[in-house]
């Protein structure tokens, strides 16, 4: 067990690689109850939340979720979030555990009419991920989930436990994230295990998301980088009504984006790890933010910020590993593509 933002969390149950493969080929369960939840309710909830995030909830349907940035005035990340539109008067936002208190304070301070409510203690969360996740959850749910497409959600009972049933995840596989009352989470967990799902820990969660180049707050995105630098321009809707950070992003777009978050693979032996220096012609020009030996792709891959001139696919640089420069090349991401 490791301490993760004050939560005791398992790095692995049976082994990182086995759990990783399990999620790629079958179904794995992640206890992600540490994630925070913040809610906006009442007339004007959508407009209030929409002014705080980069994606556009006004273009989403009820029952749809959007991935978004929560930015400060500099246009850099306070957090990355998933915002759920129950209705224009009910927005539910899932935030990172390590940022939950900071996010809530930020939202409270910047909300004008509709004040957020911190619901983090009212929800546990279990992520059910893998190609067999849909059938597993469906077998425990009386309601048909066929209509719940990617980034859609519904509410209903799973194994008799009332849940928000969200077709989302952080692995690159199909699956659900189930939000439920904390006192019923154990019953739900064991009901899912009784149907054949096995647990997976933080280690597999990290290798799975790294193979997809999904950003992890604190590693790949933080309050020193904008979504434009992070390659997350697609979650920024510049044409919507004003949002915090918009002016800074417009200015950055006009001035040119100085660095970009790229995915690379090593072309010599070694494994890139976060904080290793990225070198060009012997000079440090960037830093690795995440890296691993991808269990599915069987390659040593990393994510890191490099000057925009080095960001194109095929660009080469070195990663400094224990004082030694090891050759790397920018590649297309996600690193992992389904066969």
């Amino acid at each position, binding site marked *: 067990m490791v301490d993760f933002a004050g939560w005791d969390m398992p790095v692995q149950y049976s*082994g990182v690689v086995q759990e990783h493969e399990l999620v790629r080929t079958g179904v794995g369960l992640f206890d992600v109850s540490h994630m925070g939840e913040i809610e906006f309710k009442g007339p004007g909830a959508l407009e209030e939340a929409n002014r705080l995030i980069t994606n556009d909830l006004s273009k989403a349907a009820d029952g749809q979720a959007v991935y978004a940035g929560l930015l400060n005035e500099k246009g850099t990340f306070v957090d990355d979030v998933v915002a759920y539109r129950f209705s224009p008067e009910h927005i539910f936002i899932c935030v990172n555990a390590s940022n939950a208190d900071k996010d809530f304070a930020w939202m409270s301070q910047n909300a004008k009419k509709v004040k957020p409510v911190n619901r983090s203690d009212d929800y546990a969360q279990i992520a059910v991920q893998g190609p067999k996740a849909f059938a597993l959850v469906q077998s425990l749910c009386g309601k048909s989930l066929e209509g719940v497409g990617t980034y859609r959600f519904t509410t209903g009972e799973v194994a008799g436990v009332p849940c928000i049933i969200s077709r989302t995840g952080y692995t690159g596989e199909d699956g659900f994230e189930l939000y439920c009352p904390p006192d019923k989470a154990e019953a739900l967990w064991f009901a899912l295990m009784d149907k054949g799902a096995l647990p997976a820990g933080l*280690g597999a969660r990290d*290798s799975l998301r790294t193979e997809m180049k999904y950003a992890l707050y604190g590693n790949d995105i933080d309050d020193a980088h904008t979504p434009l630098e992070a390659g997350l321009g697609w979650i920024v809707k510049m044409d919507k009504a004003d949002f915090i950070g918009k002016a800074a992003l417009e200015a950055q777009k006009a001035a040119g984006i100085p660095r970009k978050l790229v995915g690379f693979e090593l072309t010599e*032996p070694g*494994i890139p790890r976060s904080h290793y220096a990225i070198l060009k012609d012997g000079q440090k020009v960037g830093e690795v933010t995440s890296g*691993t*030996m991808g269990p599915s792709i069987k390659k040593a891959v990393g994510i890191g910020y490099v000057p925009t001139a080095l960001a194109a696919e095929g660009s080469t640089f070195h990663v400094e590993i*224990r004082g030694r420069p090891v050759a790397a090349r920018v590649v297309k991401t996600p690193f992992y593509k389904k066969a």
Partner: protein
Amino acid sequence: MSNYPNELKYTKDHEWAKKAGSNVVVGVTFHAQDALGAVVYVELPKVGATVKAHESFGVIESTKAVSELFAPISGKVTKINDAVVNNPGSVNDDPYASWLIEVEPTNAAEFDALLDQPTYVKSLEAAH
């Protein structure tokens, strides 16, 4: 199941050592590979390099972690196990067959001072 052969010597850093003629063969213990998880990369010194007791002679990495390898004894590297470099997962399959380096010792007393099997196993139990 955990496995610590009687005929080996051990270090508190979870390396094992055994005599091969006048040289000493070095690897990591069952506990080390179990704690690391799937080993995906091993970096070893070159043949001819010198290693010093208790000092790092290489690196072993799992999916999640980087760990240093510490030399049980001082001496000159006479062989490295390329099979393990090419197939790091073999350390998990059999940590005792998957030796890492062979060393020509400079001080025979260092080998004799290593932990015997019961002492090492006791230290593992004490740590839990």
